[in-house]
């Protein structure tokens, strides 16, 4: 980062700090009832308290666990199914339109069905998260596999590469930018659905924490939970960006 960029960044942090100060001021003057709006000081204290007692750690771990398992299951299944559909023209003609029809379906609508089948359980949450997160990955994989440069398949044929080698050495790397973009979208979906499932099923996690805090009007704990969810969203998306950056270094070279 060069000097001017650094100065801008600092100024930008100062502005954000200004907003937090304003929030503090509003809270101090009780312009909004403290039942709804704790000051940043109280929210911070609640965060510290939550972490030192270990409560928030376990809630955070719960949410991360739901998110990670659902997302990983969705990634593996989404890439595998997407690869099968995307690499065959026949499959694409028969299956892709149905998938396109299902794509705009609000995935949370599957929750009642999942509850009816699996009850208010951990398994239900994982199913819902995986079901929601699979779409962007699967559709991106189908697109990526369908868009592989045909010339590369000819190269593979002239080298007499095996079917497996073609998938792992040609198709998957070629589709990787699409797949990673799909996985990034899915990460957000997985976080949202984790929170929803925790709220609905009372599973250990930040979603349950914020709901309980709201029910008992502990607004400082509530805000601590929301802040932590924001941090989770931010950190996971930054981690994903770093992974993309590393894996797609060759694309940066292209520009």
């Amino acid at each position, binding site marked *: 980062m060069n000097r001017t960029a650094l100065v*801008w*960044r600092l*100024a*930008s*942090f100062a*502005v*954000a700090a200004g*907003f937090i100060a304003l929030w503090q001021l509003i809270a101090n003057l009780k312009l909004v009832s403290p*039942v*709804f709006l704790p000051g940043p000081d109280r929210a911070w204290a609640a965060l510290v308290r939550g972490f030192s007692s270990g409560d928030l750690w376990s809630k955070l771990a719960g949410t991360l666990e739901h998110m990670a398992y659902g997302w990983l299951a969705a990634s593996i299944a989404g890439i595998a199914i997407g690869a099968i559909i995307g690499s065959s023209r026949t499959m694409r*003609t*028969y*299956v*892709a*339109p*149905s998938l396109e*029809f*299902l*794509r*705009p*379906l*609000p*995935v*949370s*609508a*599957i*929750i*009642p*069905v999942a*509850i*009816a*089948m699996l009850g208010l359980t951990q398994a239900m949450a994982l199913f819902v998260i995986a079901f929601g997160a699979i779409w962007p990955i699967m559709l991106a994989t189908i697109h990526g596999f369908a868009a592989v440069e045909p010339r590369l398949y000819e190269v593979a044929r002239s080298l007499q590469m095996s079917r497996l080698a073609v998938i792992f050495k040609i198709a998957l790397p070629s589709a990787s930018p699409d797949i990673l*973009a799909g996985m990034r979208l899915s990460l*957000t979906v997985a*976080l*949202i659905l984790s*929170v*929803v499932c925790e*709220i*609905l099923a009372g599973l250990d996690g*930040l*979603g349950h924490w*914020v*709901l309980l*805090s*709201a029910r008992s*009007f502990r*607004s400082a704990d*509530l*805000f601590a*939970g*929301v802040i932590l*969810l*924001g*941090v*989770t*969203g*931010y950190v996971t*998306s930054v981690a994903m960006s770093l992974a993309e950056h590393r894996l797609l270094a060759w694309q940066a070279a292209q520009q």
Partner: protein
Amino acid sequence: MTGNSAKALVLPLGVLVALEVWARATHLQSDSLAPPSEIVMALFGAFADLSILAATRDTLFSAFTGLAIGTIIGLAFGIAFGIFDTFNRLMEVTVEAIRPIPSIALLPIALIALGFGYRMEIVIVAFACVWPVLILSRAAVRSIEPRLMEVARALRLPPAQRVWKIIIPAALPRIFVAFRLSAGIALIVAVTVEIAINPLGLGAGIMLAQQALRPDLMLAYLVWIGIIGYALNILLTVAQRRLFGRAALSGDSP
């Protein structure tokens, strides 16, 4: 093309027939599944007593109101950020800090501040809709042909007219793409809020059907929600193509 659309129907029709046959052969007794014929009957029933229409109205009202508010806020900030680079750079950290908060996490806050009902749902939908519009309209304004801005300066257009006559029309195709994305998000968030907690609309309807152990009605709601999502998407895609031509669709990936 007709051959291909016929092929497209093979899978869904096959699944439906298989489900129907299987359900009848096994005399299906389930809390979670129902034969397609019963789902269709339940859907007709829900139309006949107008319950599903009322629910649709509630959901769409919340979704569209939230969408409208979110779009206006997102557009205002997006355009301001796009025009005034200083403003954009100063707000960067603040925006980056708020954006990753999953919209649904605001649900408990909205709940204690506003209680159950339309208002809390609208607030959450609006929050979710702000971001795509803000990000894409900012990018759209920045990528406006500099020559156009020079023209505006040469004509000595006052700032308000510059926004109305140059910036918005030039950025409109990409702003519409953002609007389309946000509309999809609005519906998803509205239904999700209803399923999670808010006792109104389609989400509450499907939850009630589940709790009443009416899998036929529950799945009828699911199908209907799917149809609405699909129809909304088609409508906006067609509108986009009509308004801005096919070229606009290429700007889909932000």
